[in-house]
């Protein structure tokens, strides 16, 4: 079966693939980092006492979750320049991924926080701890345990979603596959390599997940 498989061409295009891998990796890391910040802020707004903040957060979260990522990417890619904002494709892509994942992360973090029983909060209040102390010492340590696995899941989704940036000609991994296909017409070799490299990123993230779980989750047996 592998007789028709051209390994030489993969080797020849390896510098291109490595550049794509590097870009996918950097785009993903940066997006997930920014999405975490956006998500925590949106979650704070969603749980806020003030109607206005809550309203804005709900509109943001729901509108992102109800529309396809590809539409959002095109919206920023074609929409921003008509509003007079010109930024390179790669930044547009990061912006779209950040806002997209941020909405999902907001909901993940919210689920973690609301999973902490109300009695815990009342116990903290009764001993005179203020809002931030209750968050810091009682709620967040318990919420992190249930939040880390779905957050890592979201990070893996984001890496795979970044393939859509190939459609606005960001030179990431999938785009490299498309280049090889159009230049040499060898789609099997091209996308086999691309898939293999995504797998590598996936295992890196999984390793990170296991590592963080050991350190972040307060008690393994609990």
């Amino acid at each position, binding site marked *: 079966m592998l007789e028709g498989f051209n390994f030489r061409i993969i080797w020849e295009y390896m510098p291109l693939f490595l550049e794509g891998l590097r870009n996918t990796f950097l785009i993903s890391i940066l997006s997930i980092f920014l999405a975490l910040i956006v998500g925590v802020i949106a979650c704070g707004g969603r749980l806020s006492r003030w109607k206005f903040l809550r309203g804005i957060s709900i509109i943001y979260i729901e509108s992102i979750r109800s529309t396809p990522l590809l539409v959002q990417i095109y919206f920023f890619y074609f929409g921003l320049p008509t509003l007079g904002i010109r930024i390179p494709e790669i930044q547009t892509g990061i912006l779209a991924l950040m806002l997209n994942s941020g909405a999902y992360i907001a909901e993940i973090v919210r689920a973690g926080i609301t999973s902490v*029983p109300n*009695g815990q909060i009342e*116990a903290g*209040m*009764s*001993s*005179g*701890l203020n809002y931030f*102390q209750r968050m810091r*010492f009682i709620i967040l340590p318990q919420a992190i345990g249930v939040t880390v696995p779905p957050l890592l899941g979201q990070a893996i989704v984001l890496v795979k979603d970044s393939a859509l940036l190939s459609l606005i000609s960001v030179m990431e991994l999938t785009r490299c596959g498309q280049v090889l296909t159009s230049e040499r017409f060898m789609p099997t070799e091209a996308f086999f390599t691309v898939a293999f490299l995504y797998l590598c990123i996936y295992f890196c993230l999984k390793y990170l997940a296991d590592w963080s779980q050991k350190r972040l989750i307060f008690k393994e047996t609990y």
Partner: protein
Amino acid sequence: MIKFKDVNKWFGSLHVLQNINVHVKPGEVVVICGPSGSGKSTLIRCINRLEKFQDGELHVDGMPLHNYSINLTKLRAEIGFVFQQFHLYPHMTALENVTLAPIHVRKIKKKEAKEIGMEKLVRVGLGDKASSYPDQLSGGQQQRVAIARGLAMSPKILLFDEPTSALDPEMIGEVLDVMIKLVDEGMTMCVVTHEMGFARQVAHRVIFMDEGEIIETEKPDQFFDNPQTERAALFISKILTH
């Protein structure tokens, strides 16, 4: 110490506290009893403002709780609260549970707080369980840690909301023993409980509530042997024969 004056509270259209007038003096132990839904938990939750009320005046330790601008953190630091379901922090050891508030609210140094925490754990008979997590402790032990957590703040008042109702029968005694010891030390306590033996032995007064109203306030012997109202008599006969 605690002074309710014509306090009224509604949950929507439900009148859960009706014209409450109670005065608890320093060092006094008051047991509050009554059928479920009578408003007894709501009453003691008002004392540290876990519940708000709409009408009337309530002074606790000289602070006017009907005035919404008071410093709640300061108020609550002076009042220990023990819950029916313990509510220990599951990610902390017994000692960490006890020392959290002294360190962060009272701003006591860690080392000193640990000494105070150990002293309180020894006092409730759990000196050897300091490094255990709540899920490694029995219900009775957890509730005693919860009492030690309240004591560690050196509160002026201790409130108990059905502290033994979630416990297996054989563990009730160990928690009551700790509470009796506190009574002997002169702690001001308000206890919602159905433990009539406890009420008879140590309470200075028993308050009987039904449907949001205080029906009777009596000395325990008077209340149990000679209840003045039919509702109280019915309640006593039910819990004594159950």
